[in-house]
């Protein structure tokens, strides 16, 4: 199994388990409300509804767990184990992912206290259980903010269904006369309706609009790849934040030959692989930025055995104008095969020398038939 395929599989699993977890969490909230309104029929006595609530909640936690594990294991996005429990520490869509982290923290508190229910003070248990009501909206917003599927029709239908189900259950509970004070009921009901409307408005102007990935905080190196957008947005260039002096958005015509200088960083990933990222700028007549990501396992002879790579190249105003990957790697020399949105190819040869976290080197464009200059197969 090649690295690229396994990474894709993890990415799909992350998205899939996320959606299933949201559905199960919503079902759990609905069932919880049904126990508090004391719903019971002959075929479904009250204690079975309660039992079902518990089982569905545990199942939801299993899927949340899978979702978390696949997210961290997937090398594509730089999300580490710390971000699972400490909110807002992930470089990938910091805010929206962080909300998911908060939801996980709350759900962990709810789950653990419920498993230990017989041993803890009933009032403590009840207070902690209320956190479940807080975790659900966080999960929904997290899903919409980090998800790459919102614009897919079926995903939206599922989310809308979950929200409708939970709202309906909440309305039932309010109608049954909880909380006892009528004023509080009015406040809760109004707040919920307003919150849902705000959610709908935000969804329409945020995640559903093109370019959300960049606005949400996806690291630049990952933008534009086929993974970030479920379906590539039509001819949209990922918008870079506009600056006062608008940076150039076009490159001069090739051939290119320029000096490079920049930084390199390396990070370990779970499973033994490592991620190397080189960010460099050209100087001289060519003003451009190049970003190269190498993922591989450390080789016995030093360096990395390449498993996966991404590369981008472009002017400061459109740094991902050309995207692609490494087709040849030999020591300090790399050959990049890139293309722009229109599909025009561009091959570059990059020689780098590293000293500490600094890199320097040279970037040259390659003309001629594809494959010339490649230095051997990679797998």
């Amino acid at each position: 199994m090649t690295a690229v395929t396994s990474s894709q599989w993890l990415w799909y699993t992350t998205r899939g388990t996320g959606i299933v977890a949201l559905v199960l969490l919503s079902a759990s909230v609905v069932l919880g409300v049904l126990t508090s309104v004391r719903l019971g029929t002959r075929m479904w006595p009250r204690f079975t509804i309660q039992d079902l609530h518990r089982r569905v909640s545990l199942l939801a936690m299993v899927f949340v767990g899978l979702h978390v594990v696949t997210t961290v294991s997937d090398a594509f996005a730089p999300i580490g184990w710390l971000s699972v429990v400490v909110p807002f520490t992930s470089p990938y869509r910091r805010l929206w992912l962080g909300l998911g982290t908060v939801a996980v923290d709350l759900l962990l508190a709810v789950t653990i206290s419920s498993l230990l229910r017989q041993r803890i003070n009933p009032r403590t248990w009840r207070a902690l259980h209320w956190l479940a009501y807080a975790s659900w909206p966080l999960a929904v917003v997290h899903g919409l903010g980090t998800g790459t599927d919102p614009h897919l029709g079926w995903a939206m239908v599922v989310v809308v269904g979950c929200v409708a189900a939970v709202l309906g259950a909440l309305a039932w509970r309010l109608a049954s006369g909880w909380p006892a004070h009528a004023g509080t009921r009015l406040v809760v009901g109004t707040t919920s309706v307003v919150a849902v409307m705000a959610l709908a408005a935000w969804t329409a102007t945020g995640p559903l609009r093109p370019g959300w990935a960049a606005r949400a905080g996806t690291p630049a190196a990952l933008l534009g790849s086929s993974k970030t957008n479920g379906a590539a947005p039509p001819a949209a260039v990922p918008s870079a934040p506009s600056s006062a002096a608008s940076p150039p958005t076009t490159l001069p015509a090739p051939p290119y030959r320029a000096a490079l200088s920049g930084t390199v960083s390396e990070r370990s990933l779970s499973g033994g692989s490592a991620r190397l990222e080189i960010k460099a700028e050209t100087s001289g007549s060519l003003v451009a930025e190049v970003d190269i990501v190498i993922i591989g396992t450390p080789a016995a002879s030093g360096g990395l055995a390449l498993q996966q790579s991404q590369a981008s190249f472009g002017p400061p105003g459109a740094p991902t104008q050309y995207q692609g990957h490494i087709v040849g790697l030999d020591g300090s020399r790399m050959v990049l095969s890139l293309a722009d949105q229109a599909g025009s190819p561009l091959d570059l040869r990059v020689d780098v020398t590293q000293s500490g976290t600094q890199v320097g080197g040279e970037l040259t464009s390659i003309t001629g038939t594809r494959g010339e200059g490649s230095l051997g197969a990679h797998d």
Partner: protein
Amino acid sequence: MPIVSSHVRLRVNPVACDAFGYCAELLPEIVTRDEWGYPVMAEGPVPPRLSEVARRVVRECPRRALFLEKVPAPRP
């Protein structure tokens, strides 16, 4: 958890009870509900064949309002 004494009575803490009614559903032989939904326990100890169910019922109560109380063995 084995209960050593063979005679226990199922009792309810009326302050904690919130009339969820799981006890009456699971153990109708011992628990019936009054007109307001609150549990009424039958007199006497729990029959041995129902002791397992009684323990479950104590565990299931959402307000932990039920408990098993040891009673002295009835005099012959």
